[in-house]
């Protein structure tokens, strides 16, 4: 394996920055990935005990399964099958049987335990080993409430992923989206939220009104979205803690396309007045909107750069939808998309290095380009892919895929190589996914 000391900036590659001391690392170059063989045996428990989340020994098996699924879904790891896994004793968690694990071909080994604590909490212990070097790479313990036991598993998977790839974590995060059902001409749409792997799914609205385009605020307790309640389509702010919501702006005009600034203080949105749509900014607490664009065309879909200094948006001022970047105060508007076809729904990566978009030229596809418009790369190939949203580490995108004719949509994710594309399970159909921030 090649050792990568410094991260190399390359759009096509998901590169790993690994500390020099590490013997084992994940190497993905030029879009050709070589998933790392990794062993994640069931986790033992120091004392079998019943908890509100189930028995601790059963939880140990389930935690290992969740870690396995997360790492496999990243496309960067090839977890060993159950036939190669072997039960691990508590003693072995800190003193692994390296000769055995070496014989399986695994390069990395994840062990751990699940323990019920006296105060009702659970501890998920998580240990990562380099099998060839026979050394411990990292260890972490996560104390979670029984209701949050799956988060302990996601935190463990994030620990492994971060240590071996050098990328930021993203498994302990949620997705808010629009759950869809019913005939194409009258879809019933409900706001829904779930973990990024589809678990802990719940509905937030009842489907009586059309709801569209929910987006997480960075502090992850608030969601901005659009609702047709009362036949007055406008933007609402939904508080996940209290379950309450309020209108964002008091205008009677159509307001839509909300997106929260990285510091959580502002909402970019679009407002249509007498047929002309422009991009505005307003405090997430409400107040008077400030207009940022004033072209005669449709200006919509604003998204802040991570430092809040710039905004990417779409406009048809040139005659067709194209991407533009401007300063946060609306000055210096510059077109960045010139690749042919129409470009829409731009979203700035949380890392700042890329802008994801929907490209329309015959079909709808998801792509990325640099903020200056260079290095365009199309990641998906289907009839109707739309509405990308970044994972917290800026290395994976979720989007929705609509079927030709049926109008049925479902949620997908794709990494920046475009190779690892997979469907995200939802109880019904789904659209407009927004990937929330990493949970604390």
């Amino acid at each position: 394996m090649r050792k990568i000391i410094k991260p190399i900036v390359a759009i096509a590659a998901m590169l790993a920055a690994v500390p020099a001391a590490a013997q084992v690392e994940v190497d993905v170059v030029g879009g050709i990935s070589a998933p790392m063989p990794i062993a994640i045996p069931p986790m033992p428990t120091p004392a079998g005990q019943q908890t509100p989340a189930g028995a601790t020994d059963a939880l140990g098996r389930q935690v290992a399964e969740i870690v396995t699924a997360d790492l496999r879904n990243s496309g960067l790891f090839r977890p060993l099958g159950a036939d190669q896994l072997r039960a691990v004793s508590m003693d072995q968690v800190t003193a692994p049987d390296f000769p055995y694990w070496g014989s399986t071909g695994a390069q990395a080994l994840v062990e751990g335990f699940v323990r019920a604590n006296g105060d009702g909490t659970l501890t998920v212990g998580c240990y990562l080993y380099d099998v060839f070097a026979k050394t411990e790479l990292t260890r972490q313990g996560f104390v979670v409430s029984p209701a949050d036991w799956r988060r302990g598993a996601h935190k463990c998977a994030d620990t492994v992923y971060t240590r071996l790839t050098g990328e930021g974590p993203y498994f302990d995060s949620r997705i808010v989206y629009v759950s869809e059902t019913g005939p194409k001409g009258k879809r019933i749409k409900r706001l829904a939220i779930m973990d990024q792997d589809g678990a802990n799914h719940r509905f937030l609205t009842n489907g009586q009104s059309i709801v569209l385009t929910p987006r997480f605020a960075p502090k992850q307790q608030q969601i901005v979205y659009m609702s047709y309640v009362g036949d007055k389509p406008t933007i609402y702010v939904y508080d996940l803690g209290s379950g309450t919501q309020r209108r964002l702006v008091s205008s009677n005009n159509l307001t839509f396309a909300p997106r929260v600034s990285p510091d959580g203080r502002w909402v970019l949105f679009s407002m249509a007045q007498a047929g002309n749509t422009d991009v505005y900014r307003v405090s997430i607490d409400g107040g008077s909107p400030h207009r940022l664009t004033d072209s005669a065309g449709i200006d919509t879909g604003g998204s802040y750069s991570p430092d809040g200094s710039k905004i990417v948006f779409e406009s048809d001022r040139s005659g067709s939808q194209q991407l533009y970047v401007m300063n946060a105060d609306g000055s210096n508007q510059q077109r960045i998309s010139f690749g042919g076809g129409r470009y829409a729904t731009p979203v700035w990566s949380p890392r700042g290095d890329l802008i994801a978009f929907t490209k329309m030229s015959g079909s709808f596809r998801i792509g990325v380009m640099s903020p200056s418009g260079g290095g365009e790369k199309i990641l998906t190939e289907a009839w109707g892919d739309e509405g990308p949203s970044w994972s917290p580490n800026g290395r994976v995108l979720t989007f929705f895929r609509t079927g030709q004719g049926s109008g049925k949509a479902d949620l997908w994710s794709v990494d920046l190589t475009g190779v690892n594309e997979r469907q995200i399970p939802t109880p019904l159909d789904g659209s407009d996914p927004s990937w929330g921030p990493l949970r604390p």
Partner: protein
Amino acid sequence: MAKTSTKLIIAAALLATAGCAKKRPPVLPPEPVGNGPVQSGGETGGPVQTGVVPGSREDFLRSVSSDTVHFGLDIYDIDSEARAILDTQAQWLQRYPNVRVTVEGHCDERGTREYNLALGDRRANAAKNYLAARGIDAARISTISYGKERPAALGSDEGSWAQNRRAVTVTLQ
């Protein structure tokens, strides 16, 4: 020879049917008395016979050549066909000055969701502005955009898309 004639007649009938599907005939044939609850007064706006309340939604739908105008791809211009339809709507609205309407703007599925909300708003406002230019008080006309959320035709083909790029005038009761 006889065969050709038959074919021509069938073709003519198909054309007539196609026309009917799209537009109401200018004058509905009189219906037998007592056959159904509703009878038409025709589009000329003469005295309405039993069943249709003057100024009602039903009256509107029977009086105008269509409640819907269509648009080209990514276009919101009111063309001559749309003008002719909106003229009949304006005539009816002038006759019933207390009736308010909402114009719904719609798009086909070949645009992104948010852009289509803006485009639907453009189309609804284009129809509204035309009615206002025909003397209808703009305060009587509200607009709402549904983007691509409520297609009228369910296919993913040119014919369906053409039907879905539309502005629909709905009377508020």
